[in-house]
C-alpha cells in the first residue's frame, strides 16, 4: 500500500541578500558616480593613482582592501585593490577576476581602464543591482599599474610614445659595454619629447607653408631650406656619435613569464623582474583566480588564450583539411546572420579541451559586441602573462590591446593609412590642436642648432588623447563585468520524487550551471589544479538515505532516458561545464510520518546551493 505524499520543496538560499535601501529597482536611477567624483579626462601618475586607490578603499572599507604585492626595482609599491562585499564572504573564498593594467610602462591607458573598473564597481555597488550581484559573489583583484617605475615616468616625465616600456633592469642595448647610458632627453625643456631636425642641404624635409610641420620635399630640384630628421629628442650622452641608442629598461616584462618562455625574447630568465614575479607569486597563492584581463595598447584586439592546437590527423589530405575549414567558415557565417559579432576560434583542439575553446568563443563574441571595432584573435605564448594564467594556473585569460588611434580616428579616406595631412586635420578638427608642437629652434650640445617639432606623440598616438579615455574605459569595464556575469553558478533545477517499493522512494534533483564558464577550466583539469564540485545528501526526521552499491548508480531509477547518478555516501564529485545540467538521485527510506532530504552542492567557483525536499505522509 502506498502512502500519499505531499511534496514540499523548500529552497534555502545560499548566501544572504542584504537589504539595500539605495539599491535601485529601475536601472535608470542614480548610480552613485558622484559619491566619489573622478575625472577620466586625464592620465594619472603613480602618486595620484595610488592616492585614488587608497581614498577609494577608505571610502568603501566594506567592499575593498588595499595591499602592496611587492616592490618594483626602484622601490615603488605595486598596489592592489581587492574588491568584494566582505559581508558575503572572505575575498579568498570567492572565485576571482584578476585585472592588471600597463605591464608595459608606456601603455598607461591600461591603468585608466583598470582603475575605472574599480571605481565603477565601488561607487555603484549600493545602487546598481547588476554590480551588486557581481561584487557579492566575486572577488576582483585590480592592479592598475603593474610596471610602476616606467608607468610613472611615462605620465610624469617627457617621453615618446614608446618609452619607457620595460622594468628598469639595466641593459646594454647597443652592445658597447655600457648600460642604459643614452636615454631620451627633453632638449628644449618644454616638457614634451618631440622630434629633432637639423638643417642639411641634402635633407629630405622642408617646413610646410604654414610652418607648423616638416613635410617631405617632393621635387628633388626644389630650391628650399632643407632639413634632415635626427630622431627623438635627446643628447649623445656617451659620446659614441649616436643619440638615444641605449634607453632605460631591460627585458620585455610580457616575455618574462614562464610559459612558452625563450631566452631570445625573454632574456635573462623567467620571472627575473620583481614587478612580474610579484604578480605571478600572488596569482600562484590565489587559486581562486578564475579569469584574468591584461591591458595593453594598441590595435583594438581581444586576444584570448586558447587550448593547444592539435596537429591534423595523420593521413588527412589537403582537400579534407580544406573541407573542414570551409565547414567551420559556414558555421560562422550562419551564426553571423543572427549576430554580426559572432566569433568562432579558428583552432582544432583535443576533445578534452573543446569546452575551453567553446567557452572562449562565446565570451569573445559578446566582448566583440560590447567593445565594437575590436578584433578577436588567439593570443601567443612566448612568456606572456596571459599565457601563464591560462596554461599554468588554468584561468581563462584575455589580453586587450586598447585603442587604435589615430588609424581608426584620422583615416578619413579609408585607405588604411593616416597621411600627414589626415593626421594634422584630425589634430585640428577633433583635438583642437592638442598634442602638437610647432617647430622651433633649440640649442643642442652635440649637434649645434636643431629644430624641434611635430606631434607630441605620447599624448595622441599609442595612448588616446585624454578626451577619449572614458568611452573606452567604460566599454572595457563592461566587458570585464560581462565575463564575471558568466562565471559559473551552481543551482538546483527541477526536483522529483518517485516511489520505488514499499517505503522506499527515489528523490532526484537537477544541478545546473546556466552560465558560459564551467566550474573549472579544461586546462585546470589537465593541470590537476581543478577543484571538483561535490554533491552530498542527508536525511532528517523520518527519512534515511539508503546506501547503494556502486553498481546501482547506473540504474535508470526513474525510468527516464537521462542519466541520473546516485549520490554516494561520502558525496559525489563532478564538474559542471558551462550551460550544463546534471541529475543526481538518492534512494530514501521513510519510517515516520515526515522527513526531509537535503542535497548540498559545493563548488569552489560556482558557489554553494542547497535543496531541501520534505516528504510528508498524508
Amino acid at each position: 500500500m502506498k502512502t500519499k505524499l505531499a511534496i514540499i520543496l523548500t529552497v534555502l538560499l545560499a548566501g544572504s541578500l542584504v537589504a539595500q535601501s539605495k539599491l535601485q529597482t529601475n536601472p535608470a536611477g542614480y548610480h552613485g558616480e558622484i559619491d566619489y567624483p573622478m575625472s577620466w579626462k586625464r592620465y594619472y601618475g603613480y602618486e595620484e593613482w595610488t592616492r585614488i586607490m587608497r581614498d577609494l578603499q577608505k571610502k568603501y572599507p566594506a567592499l575593498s582592501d588595499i595591499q602592496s604585492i611587492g616592490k618594483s626595482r626602484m622601490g615603488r609599491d605595486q598596489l592592489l585593490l581587492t574588491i568584494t562585499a566582505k559581508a558575503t564572504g572572505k575575498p579568498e573564498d570567492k572565485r576571482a577576476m584578476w585585472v592588471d593594467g600597463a605591464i608595459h610602462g608606456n601603455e598607461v591607458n591600461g591603468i585608466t581602464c583598470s582603475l575605472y573598473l574599480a571605481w565603477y564597481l565601488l561607487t555603484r555597488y549600493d545602487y546598481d543591482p547588476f554590480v551588486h550581484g557581481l561584487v557579492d559573489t566575486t572577488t576582483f583583484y585590480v592592479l592598475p599599474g603593474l610596471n610602476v617605475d616606467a608607468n610613472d615616468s611615462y605620465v610624469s616625465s617627457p617621453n615618446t610614445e614608446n618609452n619607457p616600456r620595460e622594468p628598469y633592469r639595466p641593459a646594454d642595448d647597443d652592445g658597447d659595454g655600457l648600460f642604459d647610458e643614452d636615454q631620451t632627453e627633453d632638449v628644449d625643456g618644454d616638457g614634451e619629447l618631440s622630434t629633432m631636425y637639423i638643417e642639411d642641404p641634402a635633407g629630405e624635409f622642408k617646413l610646410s607653408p604654414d610652418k607648423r610641420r616638416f613635410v617631405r620635399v617632393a621635387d628633388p630640384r626644389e630650391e628650399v631650406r632643407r632639413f634632415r630628421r635626427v630622431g627623438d629628442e635627446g643628447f649623445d650622452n656617451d659620446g659614441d656619435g649616436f643619440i638615444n641608442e641605449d634607453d632605460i629598461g631591460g627585458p620585455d616584462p610580457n616575455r618574462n613569464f614562464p610559459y612558452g618562455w625563450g631566452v631570445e625574447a625573454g632574456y635573462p630568465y623567467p620571472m627575473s623582474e620583481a614587478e612580474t614575479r610579484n604578480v605571478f607569486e600572488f596569482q600562484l597563492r590565489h587559486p581562486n583566480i578564475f579569469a584574468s584581463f591584461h591591458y595593453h595598447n594598441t590595435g583594438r584586439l581581444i586576444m584570448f588564450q586558447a587550448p593547444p592546437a592539435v596537429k591534423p590527423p595523420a593521413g588527412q589530405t589537403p582537400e579534407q583539411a580544406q573541407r573542414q575549414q570551409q565547414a567551420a567558415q559556414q558555421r560562422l557565417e550562419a551564426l553571423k546572420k543572427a549576430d554580426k559579432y559572432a566569433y568562432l576560434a579558428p583552432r582544432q583542439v583535443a576533445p578534452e579541451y573543446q569546452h575551453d575553446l567553446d567557452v572562449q568563443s562565446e565570451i569573445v563574441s559578446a566582448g566583440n559586441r560590447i567593445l565594437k571595432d575590436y578584433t578577436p584573435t588567439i593570443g601567443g605564448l612566448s612568456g606572456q602573462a596571459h599565457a601563464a594564467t591560462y596554461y599554468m594556473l588554468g584561468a581563462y585569460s584575455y589580453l586587450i590591446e586598447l585603442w587604435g588611434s589615430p588609424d581608426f580616428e584620422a583615416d578619413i579616406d579609408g585607405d588604411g593609412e593616416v597621411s600627414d595631412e589626415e593626421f594634422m586635420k584630425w589634430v585640428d578638427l577633433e583635438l583642437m590642436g592638442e598634442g602638437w608642437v610647432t617647430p622651433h629652434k633649440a640649442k643642442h650640445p652635440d649637434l649645434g642648432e636643431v629644430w624641434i617639432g611635430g606631434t607630441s606623440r605620447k599624448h595622441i598616438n599609442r595612448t588616446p588623447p585624454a578626451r577619449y579615455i572614458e568611452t573606452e574605459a567604460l566599454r572595457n569595464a563592461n566587458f570585464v563585468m560581462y565575463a564575471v556575469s558568466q562565471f559559473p553558478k551552481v543551482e538546483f533545477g527541477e526536483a522529483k520524487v518517485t516511489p520505488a517499493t514499499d517505503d522506499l522512494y527515489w528523490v532526484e534533483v537537477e544541478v545546473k550551471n546556466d552560465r558560459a564558464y564551467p566550474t573549472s577550466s579544461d586546462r585546470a583539469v589537465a593541470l590537476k589544479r581543478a577543484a571538483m564540485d561535490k554533491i552530498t545528501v542527508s536525511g532528517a526526521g523520518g527519512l534515511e538515505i539508503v546506501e547503494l552499491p556502486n553498481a546501482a548508480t547506473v540504474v535508470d531509477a526513474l525510468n527516464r532516458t537521462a542519466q541520473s547518478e546516485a549520490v554516494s555516501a561520502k558525496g559525489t564529485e563532478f564538474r559542471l561545464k558551462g550551460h550544463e545540467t546534471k541529475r543526481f538521485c538518492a534512494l530514501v527510506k521513510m519510517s515516520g510520518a515526515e522527513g526531509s532530504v537535503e542535497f548540498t552542492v559545493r563548488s569552489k567557483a560556482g558557489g554553494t546551493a542547497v535543496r531541501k525536499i520534505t516528504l510528508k505522509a498524508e
Partner: protein
Amino acid sequence: MTSFRHNEFFKRFGLSVLAVALTALAAGAAQKVPITFDDYHGYPATVKYLKDVAAAYPQITALLEIGQSTMGRPIYVLVVSNMKTGTTVDAQVPLRNPRAEGVKNVTPMKPYMGKAGHWICGATHGNEYTGTEVCLYAIDKLVTGYGADKETTTLVDAKTFYICPIVNPDGVFNSLDKGISQRQNSMLRDDDGDGRINEDGPDDLDGDGLIARFRYKDPKGAFVVDDVDLRLMVRVPPNEKTEKERWSVVVEDRDDDGDGRRGEDPEAGIDLNRNFPEGWWNDQGFAGGSGDYPTSAPESRAVAEFFVTHPNIFMAQFYHTSGGFTFRPLGTAPHTRLHPQDVAVLDFVMGKKYLETIGEDVPAAWKNPAAIPALREELRKTSKNKYAIERGYELPRGWKVSYDELNDRRYGFGMTSDWDFLQLGIWSITTELWNPAKDIPGLPRIAGAEGVEGDDERPEARLALDRALLKFQDEKYGGKLFLNWKPFKHPELGEGEIGGWIPRYSSNAWPGEPLAGVCDKHYRFEIFRAGLLPDVVITEAKARLLYTSESAREATAVAAGGEVRIKKGGAKGKYRIVEVTAVVENKGPLATHTARGSTLRGNREDVVWLVGDRDKVTFLQGTPYQRLGVLDGAMKIPGPGGGGEGGGMRTAAPGAPAEEAMAPPPQFRRRGGPPGPAQVRQGGARREVRWLVAVEGDSPLKIVVSSQKGGTRVQDVKVR
C-alpha cells in the same frame, strides 16, 4: 648535538691517527686563516671562514651576500681577485647631459668585473658538501698562494674567481648540523595538505644525536643481512627467492603528526638543480623540473641573478657528489644542440685534462683526432649510440653527459649547467666528486667498483666495495663512520635495530686524506680551466700627428686604400689631425665567446673605444667605439670542431649557428636609423683598428678595449 660530537672526534682522531697531509701547508704559503680538512665545515664554520678570509685578505678578496635561503640564511660568494687591478668601460667613458629625471638604476661596475670570471660552487644539493670543501680548499690555495706562487699570483691578478661554497645553506645546515640528510632546499610548504607546515620530518628516535637507519624483520622487506659482514644490508629484489630472513630498512623516523604516515611533510623542499630555465618544461607543456616555475626558489634565483649581473663569468663548475666523474653539457637535450667547436673544447681540451687529472684513460680519438674518420667507421659496427658514431668516440666514464644517448632520452629538466651553457654561453660543467673505490689511499682496489652508485648498478662490485669500506673504516677510522646496529623498539614498527652508515659520511669524501686528495685534484683541474680564459689586451697603440688646422670642421680627411689624404686647411692651428691605430689581441687560449654564446642575446661583441675630451676631440673617421666581433683564442683547438685534422665532423647540423654569429643589437637593426658603429671584420685573435680625429691642443686620448668575457684594458696614447 651531532656536529659537536663528530667535530671533536675528528679533531682528536683525525690529527693524531690519520696524520692528514694537508697540501695547503705547502712551503712558502703562510695561512693567515688556518683551515684543515679533517671534517666537513658545514654552514656556520664555512661562513666564519669566509668572513675571516675576507678580513685577512682585503686586497684580493671581497665577500658578497648574493641572496638568502628560505630560512633566511645568507648565500655568500667570495670574490678572489686583485682588487687594485682591473677596470670596466663605465669607469673609462664619461657620460654627460643625463636625463633630468635622474633615475639611478645602474650600479657602477666593480673593477673585478673587467676581468674574465670563473665561478666555482658547491652544495647545490644540501647533502653533497664535498664540493663545499673543494671550494674552501680553492680559496685557501688562492689566498695563500698569492704572492708566494707565480701561477697563482698571475691568476689572481688577471682573473676573477667567484667562489660560492654553499648554494643551499638550509640543506647543508640540516644535513650536517641537524643530521637530517637533505638534498633539497628548505620550503615552508604544507606537503601533505593537512594545514600544517613541515610537521613530519625524520627523527632521532634513540637520542644519540644521529638520524641513521632503522631495520626490522619483515617478510616483504627488500634486504637481507650480508654473509660476510653481518652489519651490511644487501638488497634482494622482492620476487627473488632467498633462504635468508628478509628485512626492511627505513630512515630513523616516526609518525610525528599521527596521520599514519612517516616523514610525509619534512622541511625539505625542491631540488635546486631542477629549478633552472633550460629544459624545465616537459614535451607536453607541463612542468618537468622542480618548483612552481624556473628560478622559483630563492637559492636558484640568487644564482641566476648573480650570473646575469656578472656577465664576465665564462667558466663555471657546479660540484655535486658522487661518482668521481664530470657531466659536461648536455643533460636535457641531445648532443646535436652543441656546436662542434664547443664540443672540441669540452672534450679534447677540458675532458682530456680531467681524465689525466683523475687518472683515467683518454679516448684514442682525443689523443689523435686525425684517426676519427676511421674510428667512426669502427663505431658504426660496434656501437648502438648514434651520437657516439657521429662524434667518432664514446664518452668515457670520467667525462660524460647525463643525456641518455642510447635511448635518446633526456636525463632531467631544468638543470643548472645546461642553463649556463645554453642560455648564457658559459663553459659550465658539473663534477660529481668522490669515487670511494679510487679516492681512498690504501683501500684495496676492487675491479669494476669505480663510481658505483645506487643499489642496482653492479651489485657485486658495490657489495665488495661496501665490505672493503666497512673494514677500512674499522681499521683506519676507528669504526666511527658506521653505527653498529643496536636494538630499538619503534613506536609504530615495533622491535628492530638502529644503525648503518652514518649519513654524514656516506656519499661524501671521507674526511682527512681522502677529502684533501679530492680537493687537491679538483682544484688543480679548475686552475687549468682558469688558465684557458681569454685575455684581451692592447698590444700596440699609436697616435700619429698628420697635420694641424684652425678648426675641427675645416679639416676633412678621406681615407682611400689605406692612405690618408688631407684635403684642406692651413699649415698651423690649434687643431691637430691625428691618426690613431691600435692592435688588440686575445692572448688567452680560448675565444672570447663559446660558439653557442656568440649567438645569445645577453652577450655582446668585443669592442674598442677611443676616448677623449668630447669638447676637444672630433671624430673624422671611425666611430668612437668599434665592434670587433669575437676574438679567437691563442690556442689551436685540436680535433675536427676546432678546424684541425680530421675535419668534417658535422658541418650543417640543424641549429648550428651561422658564420656571422654576433648579430648587431636591435638599435642598429632598425630600418632607416643611423648607420651603426664601425664593424671591424677581421678573423683570428687579432684586430687592427684605426681612427682619424681632430684634437684641440694637447687634449689626451686613451684606448679602451672591452671584452665581456675577456676583460677590459685601457691604454693612454701619446701623439707623436
